């Protein structure tokens, strides 16, 4: 009995976290496309509006997977070979936010400029 209530209390913690979530569908109002080709980003410099949520669409035209990552923008997502992914970033303060492809870090480098 007590074990059951223990478990439900543990789930309660998880649920209180879930309560934070507002089920708002991702809106494609501000979408910027970044293409991966030959393990390089095109464009390597992307301008986005500051102080609002922006969707980055990463289009991987290589046959191999890539991990699109940026500590500055707090994103990390696998892009399969010849696949596309979307990540939402921000709201970002004006500034430079580097990103990279973790699987080909030597060449896959880029930067988002929020302004």
């Amino acid at each position, binding site marked *: 009995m*007590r*074990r059951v209530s*223990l*478990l439900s*209390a*543990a*789930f*309660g*913690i*998880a649920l*209180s*976290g*879930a309560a*934070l*979530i*507002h*089920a*708002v*569908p*991702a*809106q494609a109002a501000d979408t910027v496309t970044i293409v991966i080709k030959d393990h390089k980003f095109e464009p390597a410099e992307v301008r986005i509006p500051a102080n609002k*949520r922006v*969707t980055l669409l990463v289009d991987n035209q290589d*046959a*191999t*997977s890539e*991990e699109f990552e940026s*500590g*500055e923008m*707090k*994103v*990390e*997502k*696998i892009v*399969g*070979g010849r*696949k596309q*992914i*979307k*990540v*939402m*970033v*921000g*709201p970002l*303060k004006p500034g430079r936010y580097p990103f990279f492809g*973790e*699987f080909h*870090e*030597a060449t896959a480098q880029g930067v988002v400029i929020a302004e």
Partner: protein
Amino acid sequence: MLASLIIVFREVLEAGLIVGIVLAATQGVPGRGRSISLGIVGGIVGSCIVAAFADGISSLFADTGQEMFNATVLLIAVVMLAWHNAWMAQHGRELARDMKAVGRAVQSGEKSLAALAIVIGVAVLREGSEVVLFLTGILASEEGGIATVATGGLGGMALGALVSVLLYAGLLQIPTRHLFATTTWLLTLLAAGMAATAVNFLAQGGILMAGGTVLWDTSDVLRDNSLVGQALHVLVGYTDRPTEAQLIAYVGVVVGILLLTRWAASGAPPSNNSRVASAAE
């Protein structure tokens, strides 16, 4: 070749640290080796499955499948850690006090071990599937990629195992009477950090739209993706640019687990019941 080793090691580091903490937290619990091994092996098998269906998973839930997968897996681990800590708070004293209860407690102790095995399993699963995708990419695209894959894969995993052993050995230096309190805190902060990471995945997927503002930036002092930063990220949930939602999740889980363990430890100690039961016999 060295690059692949480093990438694999970075992915394996998180699971390695978690295994180290769990080893210390279960010091002296019978059957822990089997549970922990099961968690690791299960995680590796799961990694291969997840990697094989990566594109399918990614396209689920309007292309937020990866985020949903990561967030779910992290939240499962948070619940398991909370449950384990509460169980230990409830039974730890009983274990020491009442020898009669030990047989029964070992049985339910296996459930607590199972919870930790799941924590390890999902940690391996999350990072492991990325390793598999990375290594299969090399196999597909490079001449003689198999050597790179073997060095990177096996070397990275060996380094991860070394991290587990070092952390475990380090934690065992703590005097036994403080060890339990220390690992309880480590598991609590581990859970809080995982919750904060889960929240970040929900924000990235556009599922959580509020609380995305970064509160402070300590990346000048210690960057997330430095080795020390990454280790602290796993151990205490360090992040150089926490968002509002992450801070709420972190504090919420710490407070939640503290209340849960306090509540589990209070009330009628189960050892009294067993004493009454044996007196009645």
